[in-house]
């Protein structure tokens, strides 16, 4: 194991990718490392050697892979924490073997991040030339026939977003300064992610929008599915953070997931009690981080077993984002739902002690 905190998908799962590439005898689209079927298997797992990376509806992954295979750009939409980035990383790793060609969209992302910049020292010394050019990840992906990832597309200013239009429709990036261009090689594509919950973002122009196929990633449909996702990720994260092995009690995971789901949907799992929803999104990703920190607490300060007290603080922190209104929501939930529930007594006490 390397000392990198978080290895790239293609490194972490290099073995699985190799196994798939070896047994994959179906036709591969030009520029692809694997056939679309193998990519789907890599993402969803085969129940044997290949572990599932994305747990969710099969159709979502199929539509995403088919989109890339038909040479269309893919836009993954969803509320925060629905594994958009995760899925885009693994898709890029499986399709082109390289998930590092990444543009992070922020309000300050400049056009250079999508097109190209200049190495000014060389520019001044040698004048405009290809050597003085600093290519963006998108440009590199075009030149190599790989997948470029654009994170949080809607956070970019609109004019930067629109720089993608030519890239996606003409598959070429003109460099007027050199009277030159970079033409995309086969295998080039773009996977963008965006979140449809936030306000104050820059909506995509319809010209750009229609160059993407849109796939909306849903929140986990059932409690069992979500528990499955959470326990898998908690285990993986624990391993990569080199935490001491702790059996992350299924009981605690179930509790955290149940609390998150109930507060998110505003109604208890049995459909009988209405609860208020806090301002945070309470995504699956947050449930995972609550549990991971719980495991760390239990390992370093506790008795080595994940106890309610280890997750109580984390849950409270995730739920109470707004110190006034969310605090009320959380209290109410504790007193009306958690307290009444059979076998949740220790959890209730731990949460009350946590504030």
């Amino acid at each position, binding site marked *: 194991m390397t000392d990198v905190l978080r290895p790239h998908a293609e490194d972490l799962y290099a073995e699985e990718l190799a196994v798939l590439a070896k047994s994959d005898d179906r036709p591969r689209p030009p520029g692809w490392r694997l056939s*679309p*079927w193998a990519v*789907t298997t890599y993402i969803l797992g085969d129940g044997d050697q290949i572990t599932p990376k994305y747990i969710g509806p099969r*159709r979502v992954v*199929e*539509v995403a*892979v*088919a*989109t890339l*295979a*038909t040479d*269309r750009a893919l*836009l993954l*939409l969803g509320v925060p924490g629905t594994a958009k980035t995760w899925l885009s990383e693994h898709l890029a790793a499986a399709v082109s073997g390289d998930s590092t060609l990444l543009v992070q969209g922020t309000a300050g992302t400049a056009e250079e991040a999508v097109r190209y910049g200049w190495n000014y020292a060389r520019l001044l010394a040698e004048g405009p030339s290809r050597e003085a050019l600093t290519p963006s990840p998108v440009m590199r992906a075009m030149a190599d026939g790989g997948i470029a990832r654009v994170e949080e597309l809607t956070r970019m200013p609109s004019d930067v977003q629109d720089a993608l239009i030519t890239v996606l429709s003409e598959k070429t990036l003109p460099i007027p300064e050199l009277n030159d261009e970079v033409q995309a090689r086969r295998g080039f594509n773009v996977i963008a992610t965006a979140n449809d919950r936030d306000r104050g973002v820059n909506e995509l122009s*319809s010209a750009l*929008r*229609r160059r993407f*196929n*849109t*796939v*909306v990633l849903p929140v986990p449909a059932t409690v069992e599915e979500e528990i499955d996702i959470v326990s898998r990720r908690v285990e993986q994260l624990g391993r990569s953070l080199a935490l001491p092995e702790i059996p992350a009690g299924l009981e605690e995971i179930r509790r955290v997931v149940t609390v998150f789901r109930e507060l998110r949907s505003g109604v208890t799992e049995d459909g009988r009690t209405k609860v208020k929803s806090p301002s945070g999104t309470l995504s699956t990703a947050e449930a995972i981080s609550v549990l991971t920190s719980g495991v760390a607490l239990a390992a370093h300060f506790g008795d080595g077993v994940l106890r309610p007290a280890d997750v109580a603080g984390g849950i409270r922190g995730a739920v109470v984002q707004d110190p006034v209104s969310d605090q009320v929501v959380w209290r109410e939930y504790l007193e009306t739902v958690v307290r009444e529930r059979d076998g949740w007594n220790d959890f209730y006490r731990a949460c009350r002690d946590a504030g």
Partner: protein
Amino acid sequence: MPAEPALLGVRHHGPGSARAVRAELARLRPDIVLIEGPPEADPLVALAGDPAMEPPVALLAHVPGEPAKSAFWPFARFSPEWQAIRHALGAGVPVRFCDLPAAAMFATAGTEEAEDTDDTAPADPIGSLAAAAGYDDPERWWEDMVEHRAGATPFEVIAEAMAAVRDGHAPGPREALREAHMRRAVRRARKDGFERIAVVCGAWHVPALAAPITAKADDATLRGLPKAKVEITWVPWTYGRLATFSGYGAGVTSPGWYDHLFAAPDRPVERWLAGAAGVLREEGLAVSSAHVIESVRLAEGLAVLRGRPLAGLGEVTEAARAVLCEGDDLPVELIQRRMVVGERLGAVPDDTPMVPLQRHLREEQRRLKLKPEALDRDLDLDLRKPLDLGRSVLLHRLRLLGVPWGTARESRGKGTFRESWTLVWRPEFDVELIEASAWGTTVGAAAAAKARDLMTREGVTLADLTETLEACLLADLGEALPYALDALAQRAALDPDVTHLMAAVPATARALRYGDVRGTPAEGLGKVAGSMLARIRAGLSPALTGLDDPAAKEMIGHLDAVHAATGLLPEAERDAWLAALHGVAGRGDLHGRIDGRLTRMLLDAGSFDGEETARRMALATSAGHSPARVASWVEGFLAGGGLLLVHDAQLLRLVDRWLSGLSGTAFVDVLPLLRRTFATFDAPERRAIGERVRNVGRAGAGGRDEAALEIDEELAAGAVATVLAILGRSG
């Protein structure tokens, strides 16, 4: 020796099966076609060839007089049974239905849902086979596995598969009966000299029909089959019902898609997605041809990824979602509703057997230019036009008969001559019509008879009576009116409960007014209303005695309703009513809330002037009363929301004067009670009241308030005359 009959096992409502049946029949050229269905329908088959017959339609079998016992056999144009009928009619060969007679089904089932009790046979065996093979769409499976298998006809393949599925299956009692009957029908056809017999039945039954079972054994099974009198006819059907209802055992969830598969000459995916783009454009969503191109590519890509030779419904839906709808679920639902299910309403020719009532309704529909449609349609009527009045009358009559073809909507414009409806025709209305045909042969006569029956029923309340009376007036049932008035007068005389009378008054007053608008003669109605009011006035005082909180609240509702209704009646009635109120108001033992409300009514009506009201207010809120009573008095007095206080300067001044006249301690005592009332007002209303109060004080000091109220009658005369003319009270 005639050849073995050809057994065509089909998937009910499967377009693949339908196409295969059509091709197979053209190849076999049978001299008789036997179809799974009720034999009672044999004489009706010829109607299916009528050009005016337009699927989806259904065979409706019912036991006369027992409307609960009815069953449907729906046919769409992609139903194999329908294609078999059309083929036979085209080729001029006889068609016979070979299933168990509907009569026997009703008798054996004994329950209303004749089809659902179908015992052991799976509803959709081909669907189950497809599901077992990993297909979510049975039609895909049919195409991949059955039609693309070379060498054998699809029906041999199906027979083979079903024989394997049914191996070791023992049919339940009903299934055994049905299959015995089918075998018997085949034998009879053979005896009648037919040589090339084709049987179109559910795939599940094929092995049973091929089994070597003797005529004797079948006769033993079928012995003593119960009989019932059954009438059968064709009725129009909708795709929506096809999706939810399972008449043939197999309900289909995507009739629109099947219809498309069956009807599209080529390139089904391209046509479908182009159609979907059309639907979205109609709704104002920008969808370009580039979108359609990309969605077709994605659908095909998905099909390849899923290992299917051609994109199916699942693929085109995903493609439409990802490309055409840009991930949004709402437009996907729109496509689902408009295209996948599809709202198509069939039609039957005029010479279909119908009860006279249905026939009359068809004539009326034609006369009034109202076509039954399966999708919601809004209709705005102007009752001053004869055509619209006729439509309104027809809709009201149908409502009385329990056929809610139209539901009344909130009318957009003001005015009593406007009526707004939402029309949607549902296939089950035909059943209701058949049921209602016991009442008469025309819509009007049947509605009148039904209304008369409603009014003479045991336990009918006065309010029911007046409601029916109102409905009769709306439906222009002049012949039922005398009965209605009679019944009303009698009930009113006998009913000891004043509240019942009070509940009946508003509808009667409205009815009087409708009579005016629609030109319905309603003589006698005014008299009845007058006598009812007289009884109410007599019984009012005792009725107000000893009421608790909930009863008082209910009583106030009645008082308000009657009070409003008297406004529609002649002046004399109103004066008498106000006098009666005057008589009760101020009685010491009244419930506070009622007393408050009465005071307010009389103030609004002008019976009390400001001085008198102020006196009563002071009296009612003085220390001698318990705080609870004071509170409820104030609540009753101020009921009707804070807006009134904002706009009624006189009322506001009264309240203001009373409050500012209270001593310090008395004010503190009253304050919580006031809060109780004011807390029910909205915050903006409270703020507006506060602003008004400030202005009242200021204006009062300057004396401008009084001036503002002064009216220049000369100046207003012209406007007043016009308003009076509009109200019809000129001269």
